[in-house]
């Protein structure tokens, strides 16, 4: 892989035996696909999509709404209402397909970009904004929605998920594909390089824990392309740890649903972990602070636009399922409503007070923090009325 260390004379790098070049966006990539970018249903020998068109309409609605939520949040950031936003643009199918495959008792450990999965788990989108607005660090109750808090330290949540799954084992909560429980951990292509993620693979494998590792390979870790993290397809990592890995077209919501469904069933039954690599693309910037023109080509983006996860479902619904305009218009109207509610909610979020934050460092408060809180409160009160 002489390209990876330029500056070193190429002749010292004989070609390696193992495959080296990561698949290019322009090449054909091997993965599970059930709906083509053109909206055509295709079959796969190992995975089938067994829901009806109503369900597909539901997926369309989910994807459209979360994209709208995402767009609105980006706008709110641009207008100074949020400090930051991490957009899921392009990853809707990966998130909705896997999210809709979850049972009510399954537990989710997200990164910071799983707004679509949050939606599937019933988290009020407004609750997602607090972290980015800087008023809280995730204001939903993870137990209510079976959706853990966003984790910013890359990869850390994969171990939490594995430990949680070990808890499910110990609770005898696994057993069969319907009633058993599973855990799903989301992470990115970049995260796959963290020690924690690989330790999670080891734990999950050794304890045969009911956990699905769902990697959204969106080709980028901020400015670093996937070949900074691996020289072979990521899903193959799992084999080295002794459990199955599968690559799915991450822009195909039918396929991500089917593949997730199967992996979750395996976990719930007690057959252990699976790694899913959802092959997709981060259509936007890493976050609103990022400037992708510094490191990637606009052609790439154009190429991926042709694989849009929502467009292909719309094409299918229109051409094959005979869904008419009304349906789409209705969803668009609903999306506008969701966006308006989100915006209004954001603008009226109460301003937090530092004094409220001294009491949640510990369950059993310490005298020192009581003192610091009191001193701060007294100090702050001395400015009352003044403009600091």
């Amino acid at each position, binding site marked *: 892989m002489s390209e990876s260390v330029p500056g070193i004379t190429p002749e010292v790098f004989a070609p390696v035996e193992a495959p080296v070049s990561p698949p290019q966006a322009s090449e054909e990539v091997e993965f599970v696909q059930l709906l083509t970018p053109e909206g055509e249903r295709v079959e796969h020998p190992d995975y089938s999509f067994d829901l009806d068109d109503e369900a597909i309409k539901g997926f369309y609605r989910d994807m459209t709404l979360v994209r709208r939520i995402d767009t609105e949040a980006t706008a709110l950031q641009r207008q100074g209402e949020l400090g930051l936003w991490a957009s899921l643009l392009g990853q809707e199918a990966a998130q909705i397909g896997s999210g809709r495959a979850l049972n009510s008792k399954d537990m989710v450990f997200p990164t910071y970009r799983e707004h679509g999965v949050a939606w599937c788990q019933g988290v009020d989108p407004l609750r997602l904004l607090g972290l980015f607005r800087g008023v809280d660090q*995730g204001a939903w109750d*993870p137990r209510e929605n079976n959706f*853990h808090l966003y984790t910013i330290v890359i990869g850390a949540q994969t171990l*939490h998920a594995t*430990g949680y799954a070990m*808890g499910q084992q110990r609770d005898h909560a696994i057993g069969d594909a319907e009633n058993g429980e599973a855990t799903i951990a989301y992470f990115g292509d970049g995260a796959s390089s963290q020690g*924690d993620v690989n330790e999670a693979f080891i*734990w999950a494998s050794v304890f045969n824990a009911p956990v699905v590792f769902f990697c959204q390979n969106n080709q980028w870790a901020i400015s670093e392309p996937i070949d900074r993290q691996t020289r072979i397809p990521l899903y193959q990592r799992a084999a080295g740890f002794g459990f199955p890995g599968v690559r799915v077209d991450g822009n195909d919501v039918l396929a991500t649903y089917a593949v997730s469904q199967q992996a979750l069933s395996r976990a719930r039954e007690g057959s252990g972990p699976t790694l899913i690599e959802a092959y997709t693309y981060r259509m936007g910037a890493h976050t609103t602070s990022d400037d992708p023109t510094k490191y990637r080509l606009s052609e790439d983006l154009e190429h991926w636009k042709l694989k849009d996860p929502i467009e292909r479902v719309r094409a299918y619904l229109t051409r094959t399922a005979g869904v008419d305009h009304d349906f789409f218009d209705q969803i668009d109207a609903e999306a506008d409503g969701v966006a308006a509610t989100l915006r209004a909610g954001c603008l009226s979020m109460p301003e937090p007070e530092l004094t409220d934050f001294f009491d949640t460092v510990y369950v059993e408060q310490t005298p020192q923090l009581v003192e610091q809180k009191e001193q701060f409160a007294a100090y702050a009160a001395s400015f009352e009325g003044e403009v600091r």
Partner: protein
Amino acid sequence: MTKITLGKGINAGLRAAMEADPKVVVMGEDIGKLGGVFRVTEGLQKDFGEDRVIDTPLAESGIIGTAVGLALRGYRPVCEIQFDGFVFPAYDQIINQVAKMHFRSHGRIRMPVVIRIPYGGGIGAVEHHSESPETLFAHVPGLKVVSCGDPVDAYWMIQQAIATDDPVVFFEPKRRYHEKAELDESVPPALPLHQAKVVREGTDATLLCYGPMVKTCLQAAEAAVEDGRQLEVVDLRTISPFDLPTIFASVKKTRRAIVVHEAPYTLGPGSEIAARVTEECFYHLEAPVLRVTGFDTPYPPSRMEEDYLPDLDRVLDGVDRVMGY
């Protein structure tokens, strides 16, 4: 009444906690059949099964990271780190996850995780097996940090640590594992977890210590009697938070204080105690708060540890200095 060692005290405390609450699980390297390299978990796997006494893969970040997940599921994991120097691969999970989860969730999530760390020197071990990294945890908001100094405290404090809903880093003075005492399990613990105790009363100066140094300071206080000095010895027991009222009361009485710990000098726990005591007892102090500690070098090869570690003589030397003001 049973005679126990400090190590057996923790073992018995773990057993009691596991009997009392089926959600308590113990996890770490070699804690099962072997019973841990110090035998502190001896017999637990046999009695509570491999499901509750978990021999883990060899990876500390994995131990703590999965403990976080177990805690989120309602378990109360007690993690063993084999030696002080091996906690650092897990440091990120401790600092960024265990310590912050309650705060991050604005109180919705609790992290009742105990991290047991045999620590300190004096056992003739090789590198990484004799360190005292307590500052690196006590500085971190969200963690509580304690250390037991005698077998009876070992028995009760480990149970109190497991019972609290906050994460506790539990430092075990490994060279005192074989110290013996009488334990009466039927007498409830004398003190809550985060309270210091005056283990010897005195009038001339206060020795503030914890963990392995409690015994050393008691010996020094005994020896100081010959010089006509009555030293008060306070076993801090809790390093985060410090029990300041007990510390202040003692120092206001004796007007002189020395903090004794094995951890390096600079930014060791003694620095905070010295700063606080000075602020609170400014007009009471006859002398600055002095510190008798490990040096600001990595822990040396063990043939030199006797010189590196504070001992009776070094403590008495400190007493001489503090009395000299």
